[in-house]
């Protein structure tokens, strides 16, 4: 489309009011988290560092096409990586894009995937405190996510308990690439704690579990790896449904983040179709997979699909359910969605307000 078309797509008068369900804050250096770590863990972090199930202790083995996987224009003047400056986050994003509330999703460096479970627990505790002290206390629009060392369910449940009554935290963060699929019973204490404390679970792309990104081996290219996050989320959803997590925890709510949207109707239909043949294998399911998804699962919108025609996008939203969609930008990552231009389809003001604000307002009970 030409620049002129972009102009025409712009809402003329509407003041932008957005709840951004996916913002990534960053540290300038590991030392930022030292104040929240016991001395022994500072030493451990300094000497041994991150210890993950792949070849590099920190770098990704499919390097991204943009440094720090970020927008090139998101580097603070004072130095530090994208996402490390609250001032820049404010001016470039929160203020500029009408963000009324922003959900923090800290990712580096996979605290939930650390092989040393005690270290993982200590790191997630420290990063939870870091979120509040460094970000939420200084910016009332921001909210934090409870990071947990998901392979240590005892440590995870303890951390959830410690943070559950703190209103600065709005959800529990899980990474999809876990040792076993997330629906497996070993993770149920986490869901139990989430349901009991009425906290949603956010599953955001990430994690390293040592399993190849595909059932047929490791991809060579980032182009494949970036695509594979969609299939990864499909597998998470399948596990949560077929293990009966939603049957066992009827109050549980899950938001799948950054997994894309285009696959949702077809995958739901696939689950339904083959469950109908094979339901004797999973008698603990009392309802169809798509019913569970409709009741318990939401999806953030970034990266937004761009089908060939606008009508196809509307059809996609119709089939997913307009109430299921929580707007997100993924600031400051490279595939950032601008709230003004992310939807390549004409939306009514009511639809726009619902997607950009209303659904997340209801989901998080804020604003």
């Amino acid at each position, binding site marked *: 489309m030409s620049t002129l078309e972009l102009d025409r797509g712009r809402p003329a008068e509407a003041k932008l009011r957005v709840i951004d369900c996916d913002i990534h804050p960053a540290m300038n250096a590991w030392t930022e988290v030292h104040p929240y770590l016991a001395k022994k863990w500072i030493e451990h972090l300094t000497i041994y560092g991150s210890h993950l199930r792949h070849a590099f202790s920190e770098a990704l083995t499919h390097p991204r*096409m943009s440094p720090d996987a970020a927008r090139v224009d998101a580097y603070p003047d004072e130095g530090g990586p994208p996402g490390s400056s609250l001032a820049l986050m404010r001016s470039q994003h929160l203020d500029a894009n009408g963000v009324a509330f922003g959900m923090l999703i800290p990712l580096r460096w996979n605290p939930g995937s650390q092989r040393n479970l005690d270290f993982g627990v200590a790191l997630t505790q420290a990063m939870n405190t870091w979120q509040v002290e460094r970000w939420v206390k200084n910016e009332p629009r921001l909210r934090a996510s409870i990071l947990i060392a998901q392979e240590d369910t005892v440590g995870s449940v303890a951390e959830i308990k410690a943070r559950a009554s703190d209103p600065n935290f709005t959800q529990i963060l899980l990474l*999809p*690439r*876990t040792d*076993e*699929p997330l*629906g*497996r019973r070993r993770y149920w204490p986490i869901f139990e704690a989430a349901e009991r404390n009425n906290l949603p679970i956010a599953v955001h792309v990430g994690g390293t*579990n040592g*399993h*190849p*990104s*595909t*059932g*047929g*081996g490791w*991809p*060579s*290219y*980032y*182009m*494949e790896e*970036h*695509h*594979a996050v*969609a*299939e*990864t989320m*499909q*597998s*998470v959803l*399948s*596990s949560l449904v*077929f*293990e009966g997590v939603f049957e066992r925890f009827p109050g549980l709510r899950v938001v799948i983040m950054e997994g*894309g*949207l*285009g*696959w949702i*109707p*077809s*995958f739901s*239909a*696939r689950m339904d*179709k*083959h*469950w*109908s*043949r*094979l339901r*004797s*294998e*999973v008698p603990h399911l009392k309802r169809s997979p798509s019913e569970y998804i409709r009741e318990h699962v939401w999806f953030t919108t970034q*990266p937004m*699909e*761009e*089908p060939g025609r606008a009508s*196809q996008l509307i*059809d996609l939203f119709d089939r997913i359910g307009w109430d299921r969609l929580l707007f997100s930008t993924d600031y400051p990552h490279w*595939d950032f969605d601008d709230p003004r231009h992310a939807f390549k389809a004409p939306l009514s003001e009511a639809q726009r307000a619902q997607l950009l604000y209303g659904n997340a307002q209801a989901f998080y009970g804020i604003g």
Partner: protein
Amino acid sequence: MVAGRPSADIDHAAIYAGAIDCDLHPALPGMQVLLPYLDDYWREMVSVRALDRLNLTLTSYPQNAPLSCRPDWKPEGTAKPGASLEAMQSHVLDRYQPRFGILNCLYGAQVMHSEDMAAVFCRATNDWIRDEWLSRDPRLRASIVIPAHNTELAVAEIERRADDPRFVQVLMLVSGEVTLGRRQLWPIYQAAERLGLPIGVHAGSAYRYAPTAVGWPSYYVEDYVAQSSAFENQLQSLISEGVFTKFPGLKLVAIESGLTWLSGFIWRADKTWKGVRAEVPWVTRAPSKIIRDHVRFTVQPIDAPDELAALMRLIEHLESDELFLFSTDYPHWQFDGDDALPTGLSETVRRKILCGNALATYPRLAAANSAMEVNA
């Protein structure tokens, strides 16, 4: 559940007569049928190691699982579904009267770790298919079963079948030892392209790794559902690695993939490509365009509650009605009665799905078809 009309009053032969059924599964009754095709050493190994007493049921298709065999296609007693040509003729070949049916044999041979063992048993399987199926019913064609994890032996097996025009495709599982686009597999694609054989990628896994990126699911239904995700991953591999750039004459058929995932796939793949193109500069066109030219999809199962709407939506999204190939997936249970294809398609689209698209995809079928028509 599949939405089906009561078919009692439909003339089933008329609906599908002349079609090309691109996914039929013959089953080996047991390893004993392969003995005539083995040399002395392997015959002795079978005997000494009791290899023929191994239960080679694939984890991908447990024999008694509902999906593996439609109830009214179940054989008597302990016989395996799909093991009887007579049954296949009665259930689908004589009932629907296709002009051709392509046999995709899923047997344990392909997934044995020992490359030599896999190669020997693949060869024997292809010999058995030739003698017990292809030679007994002139409508039947077959995919060449290969040990994909040793490309030299795989190419040798493809070459061995090259002169038999009844072998029309090379069969691979969607989840093997390496992602399907990897260069180490290219000798297979090179041979296939040269010989005018599409690569048939079929649902199923060698289970060299967890079937999903998130680990090992508990249930078979999860594994089966994950097949569509596997097709997405492997198609992205084939595109990203430049297989269709390197082998511009190659066609790929995704068999038993579920189909409806294709819309979301092309939207995401096209968008990703625009941003990361410089990593894979040999991908000179959008993935959706590459798929339109090179990839085809067998129809069963159609993962949708309304199959007609789903097919029409796919045709609109892909901007092509040439991608879909009729299949029954016999004896797997994907549809009820005679509802192998939803009613309501335009005649043009129906003829393409039933027959025309397969003729355009399989050069050896097209050649045989022309010969038949000349002789008719």
